[in-house]
């Protein structure tokens, strides 16, 4: 997803100026996607260049320009909602690549790499669960609550995947008869080191 589509979706609710867009974007996505107002204005400028938004009038007394969505902007928004999101999950991919490299790099304690990640992901999951409880107890902002759910599911999936990796690594190690027994797990939080 791009900030572009996020802003288009917010403008579909009605004309808004930059600061409002930033505030509403953060309300919808919680703290998960902090935006600075500069990013908002840069994106608005590009959207205006592509004629997907247009100024809704003159600047107000405080110099703020209100933007509105255009018909091509609406079409683009509709297209976005119709299209599936392609997986370009950078952090997750980085983890997969890191694990793949850990397995194939001599001297790396894969179990420690997995555990370091597991502990970090679990902490994230604990924090998300707290936020979700607070969201459920509060006014019940559905949008924010659903974003949190998505993050919870992702963290949970990552934990399962880490378990899976560990099991497979253990099996592979057991299959290699000439390998020495797995080293004891080092101090928690330790980075994987080359021996």
């Amino acid at each position, binding site marked *: 997803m791009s900030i572009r589509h996020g802003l288009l979706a917010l403008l579909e609710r009605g004309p808004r100026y930059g600061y409002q867009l930033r505030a509403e974007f953060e309300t919808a996505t919680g703290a998960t996607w902090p935006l600075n107002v500069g990013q908002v204005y840069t994106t608005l400028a590009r959207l205006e260049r592509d004629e997907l938004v247009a100024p809704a009038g003159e600047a107000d007394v405080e110099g703020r320009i209100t933007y509105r969505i255009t018909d091509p902007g609406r079409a683009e928004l509709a297209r976005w909602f119709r299209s599936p999101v392609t997986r370009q999950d950078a952090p997750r991919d980085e983890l997969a690549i890191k694990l793949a490299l850990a397995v194939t790099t001599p001297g790396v304690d894969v179990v420690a790499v997995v*555990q370091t990640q597991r*502990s*970090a992901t*679990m902490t994230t999951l604990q924090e998300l669960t707290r936020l979700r*409880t607070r969201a459920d107890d509060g006014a019940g902002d559905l949008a924010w609550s659903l974003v949190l759910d998505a993050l919870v599911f992702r963290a949970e999936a990552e934990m399962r995947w880490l378990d899976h990796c560990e099991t497979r690594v253990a099996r592979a190690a057991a299959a290699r008869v000439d390998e020495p027994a797995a080293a004891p*797990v080092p101090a*928690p939080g330790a980075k994987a080191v080359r021996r």
Partner: protein
Amino acid sequence: MSEPLLVLRDVHRSHVQGSTTVHALRGVDLTVGPGELVAVMGPSGSGKSTLLHVAGGLDTPTSGEVLVEGRDLAVLSAGAAAAVRRRSVGYVFQDLNLLPSLTAAENVALPRELDGVRGRPARAEARAALAEVGVAELADRFPDEMSGGQQQRVAIARALVGPRRLLLADEPTGALDSATGEEVLRVLRARCDAGAAAVLVTHEARHAGWADRVVFLRDGTVIDSSGPVAGAESLLPSGGGR
């Protein structure tokens, strides 16, 4: 932190299986205070259930200390240890928690009656405990008239009835669907927020997410722990006392 409800100090537990000795626990340290929900995770055979059994006095450590509300179970007589176990600790298992021939209120009142509390006050305590887990209206139902999630709530009420403040739970959500499991965890969390302490053995990361601290067990040793409040602790070397 106020006085811990549970302290495990350098706890070892080994048992002989045929010609080999199995070291189920090797030097586990764990402290759980009032208000804390601690989850224990680890692969099967890592010692999770043994940890829970030792913590609740259902099993005795080969060496090390187990203190429940400050009292060392190992130095007490068998009878005194049993009394501590019964009056201070409640258990919730995956299933078969409730006696099928008793109503919810009778099930919850039972441990108090065993404590010597008379029927009527015990029943009143049971109803209060049921209300605390949000199932006051189930008091007169029998277990087979309740859903799995409702039964687990009643089991939590029974575990924490009267003065009991330490709850030990072994996969309490194992037999439940995901949404019902969440509800049970929500109740557990609420009871801890109200001052109880719980140790939860689970393999579900989602449920461990409700804990203040998640302890990772492997080969009978705590290798790591996670949690927003335990950041510094997780940097301690394993086996280091707290």
